[in-house]
């Protein structure tokens, strides 16, 4: 039993370090953001292994739910703006605002 939990801890720790490395050295930014979200979820599991359930709840909600969405929104903004500049017209279709 303790061998399995030790192996699980080693697996979580190694995958956290590996995910940080591959998220930051990837060439595609979308891939980097997605790997960062996965890194946050693995860190949330690490908090549970360290007996910190409050932090695990907060990291799961904030790390993936708020920070991940903020990054994806910035990526989407980059793509929309570059598409708008190429076509020459504004993508900004609003209704009276």
């Amino acid at each position: 039993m303790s061998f399995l939990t030790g192996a699980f801890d080693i697996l979580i720790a190694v995958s956290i370090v590996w995910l940080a490395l591959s998220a930051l050295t990837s060439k595609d930014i979308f891939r980097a953001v997605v790997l960062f979200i996965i890194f946050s979820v693995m860190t949330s599991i690490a908090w549970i292994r360290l007996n910190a359930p409050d932090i695990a709840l907060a990291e799961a909600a904030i790390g993936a739910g708020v920070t991940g969405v903020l990054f994806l929104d910035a990526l989407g903004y980059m793509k929309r703006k570059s598409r708008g500049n190429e076509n020459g017209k504004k993508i900004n279709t609003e209704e009276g605002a």
Partner: protein
Amino acid sequence: MKTTMLFSIAGIAVFFIGLYCLMAYRHLLKKIIAVNVMGTGVFLFIVSIAARANILQPDPVPHAMVLTGIVVTVSATAFGLALFKRIYSETGKPYLDNEDK
């Protein structure tokens, strides 16, 4: 004791990976991700220190500090991303202007 030492080393390793990538890469989004990764590494180290004496009853004061730290990190990330969007809308490049090339 073994679990906490493992996560301490992992936290410090993640911190230094983030530090290297913050300085070495030019893309602003990657820099913001690197700052987040550095913060998460520090939190891993702090919480593993909190669990050193007794892992079944960890010290709750570092837990409260890390909770505060997570919220402050997300505020700083949101502000950094707003700055990034403004830079991108003004200059059209996701790099800062004073970099070479």
